[in-house]
């Protein structure tokens, strides 16, 4: 499969670019909700519009009423979300939770997918149990209780957790904390008794929860996939999340870079456009090269994931790490090259830096994924 978009994908990219550029623009969404102090950190009306566009069900099979597309297409939408810093539950709901539900029972699909397709529901994913991503260690416990389970423990960095109608939770049903096996995924409904949220605003003005589960009773139907055999489902959710976050990161990088290059062409100092200075030209060209390479490996990882290829998980980590490096460079160079104005809240470039920081941590940072690349390569 060639590493560029086919005609349908190009059309989707144009549509997504236009939609996010207009409806999801920074002033209309991110700044608007931030300045209002919105408790969700995003607008439900936009989520509804995204549903009308068909975006929310992009990874949901056609048989279930969705678009039946893949990670390449989800990435197209995510790149535009990144470029416009559009706050939305797309990554957690339409990519990660949808991937989990796709591997779940018909009952679960019937219960949750219609809400997602209509843009009425928002889902979150609870994996991390500390400030750094480490999905190999799952301590949160779900003990068998009657026909169901009793869930106890805590989860951190649950993005939009308090706004979510359902949280996909990775919990331990057997073995010890560091075991690969013995993990089960659950769909925990919002109104389950014993679920507590300490919802906090993050640097990029998105909302995330420290979630506590105090003997939360779940019936057997809440299980996604196999009891004790949830690691495989979890890995697929993680890979979709990694590649999705990487795609959004490419959008952040490109948005930031475009803004910076434009600025270099307008800003005058010492009687010249600063873009004429070779010191800045070389840095800009280096940045371009890093962002292009990052974009290439993201498309590669998306295609491998959609093809179910053996090395998809390796390339998902390569993609997340490479984007972490490239987008980090893009936002830092962006602020620096903007000079003093780049430090002001009024100017958007700083917003890119904040979003990049949050996205860099989400689903594992550069170091986590570079380490994973080393381990998967046998060193």
């Amino acid at each position, binding site marked *: 499969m060639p*590493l560029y978009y086919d005609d349908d994908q190009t059309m989707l990219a144009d549509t997504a670019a236009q939609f996010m550029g207009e409806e999801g623009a920074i002033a209309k969404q991110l700044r608007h909700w931030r300045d209002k102090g919105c408790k969700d950190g995003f607008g439900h009306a936009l989520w509804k519009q995204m549903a009308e566009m068909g975006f929310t069900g992009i990874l949901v099979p056609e048989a279930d009423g969705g678009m039946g597309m893949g990670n390449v297409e989800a990435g197209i939408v995510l790149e535009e979300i990144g470029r416009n810093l559009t706050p939305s539950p797309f990554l957690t709901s339409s990519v990660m939770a949808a991937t989990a539900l796709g591997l779940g029972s018909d009952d679960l699909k019937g219960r949750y997918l219609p809400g997602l397709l209509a843009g009425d529901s928002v889902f979150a994913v609870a994996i991390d149990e500390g400030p750094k991503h480490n999905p190999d260690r799952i301590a949160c416990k779900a003990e068998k209780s009657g026909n169901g389970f009793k869930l106890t423990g805590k989860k951190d960095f649950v993005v939009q957790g308090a706004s979510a109608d359902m949280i996909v939770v990775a919990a331990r049903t057997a073995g010890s904390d560091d075991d690969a096996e013995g993990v089960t995924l659950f769909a925990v409904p919002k109104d389950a008794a014993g679920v507590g949220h300490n919802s906090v605003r993050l640097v990029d003005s998105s909302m995330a929860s420290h979630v506590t589960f105090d003997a939360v009773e779940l019936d057997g139907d809440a299980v996604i996939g196999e009891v004790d055999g949830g690691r495989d489902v979890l890995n697929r959710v993680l890979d979709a999340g990694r590649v999705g976050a990487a795609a959004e990161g490419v959008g952040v990088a490109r948005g930031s870079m475009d803004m910076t290059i434009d600025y270099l062409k307008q800003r005058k100092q010492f009687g010249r456009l600063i873009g004429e200075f070779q010191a800045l030209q070389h840095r800009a060209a280096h940045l371009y090269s890093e962002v292009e*390479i990052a974009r*290439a490996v993201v498309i590669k990882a998306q295609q491998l994931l959609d093809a179910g290829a053996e090395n998809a998980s390796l390339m998902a980590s390569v993609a997340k790490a490479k984007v972490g490096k490239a987008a980090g460079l893009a936002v830092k160079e962006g602020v620096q090259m903007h000079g003093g104005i780049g430090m002001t809240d009024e100017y958007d470039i700083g917003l890119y830096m904040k979003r990049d920081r949050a996205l860099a941590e989400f689903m594992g940072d550069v170091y986590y994924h570079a380490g994973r690349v080393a381990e998967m*390569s*046998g*060193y």
Partner: protein
Amino acid sequence: MSDLDQFRSETRAWLEANCPAEMREPVREDADIYWGGRNATFKNDAQKAWFEVCRDKGYTVPAWPKEYGGAGLSPAEAKVLREEMARIHARAPLQSFGIWMLGPALLHFGTEVQKQRFLNEIARGEIRWCQGYSEPGSGSDLVSLQTFGEDKGDHWVVNGQKIWTSYADKADWIFCLVRTDKNDKYRGITFMLFDMTSPGVSTKPILLISGNSPFCETFFDDVKVPKEYADGIPAQVGEVNRGWDVAKYLLGHEREMISGAGDTERGAGIGAMLTRAAGGVLDPVLRAELAMFDVDALAYSAMGEKFLDEIKVGKAHPAQPNMMKYAGTELNKRRNELIMAAGGSAALEWDSEESNGGSKARSWLRTKANSIEGGTSEVMLNVVAKRILELPGA
């Protein structure tokens, strides 16, 4: 089964039957590479057999048309062949500047008779070529070149000096940039082809920091270059005084080649290999650097694939090879720094049998030229800044 799947299984079977085991080993020394030419010798029977069977099938230049010595493969088929060869670690049957650089320029700019003669000779490995571009005063600023060809009616008389002419001392012919009009910087250069045994041509190797000498200085002292060879074959490619167009086109191919974009194996991680080589004990900080390098290398490999895919359908920006060259050569230098670091004192050995004649140290030194030859990294960044990002200034 699709036609491409069919082609893949046929190719796999063909390679299995025809590629000798000795040709599936990594290249260890210069003699492992077959360059062809009038004075070529084979290192062993396997190298000869592998070259001949590929030549007869058109696999020295698989994507060239059959009438010019190629196999006429489609881009997709050529990719399959590359992948299948990479799968068994097959060596290239023939390496040549004729294949990488002159060939593409002739395919694009050559006359029919020119193509018939030279492309077939290149494909059959009969003539070894070198490239005469750089001059002592014209490296990155190539267009300032001074070698002059005086028009004498039916021939030119060429005088001047070239430098960094790779393997000029071993080449049979040269493709050379010669100024034929002193009044126009760009439109005064002619792209000429002539025999290195012509009277007045001499070469002198340049010893490099790696201790090896692929490069030469090449001198032209009243060299007579006919304007037309037998059978009406012009000595110049493209029009007289329009050689810059050819040179630019060809530089794109050179940069693509130096960047290693076409090498499907290049992106494979080195971390595991180096950890094994070091007996499993690597400093944790070095291990971390290797992991970060592998991330960049694997990502670059995807970029190489994307770049080739986009070139095939005309989607790549014309200045994209500059970006690939920049990123690829910087990466290759980093790779060799890490190989030296992981190798420790063993990698320092300059001429021992154990170190295979100092191959690591010599390669490391050699790669320092990657970001200089074919246009420096700084020139590549200038081109990207101006042509892709469209930043202002001269």
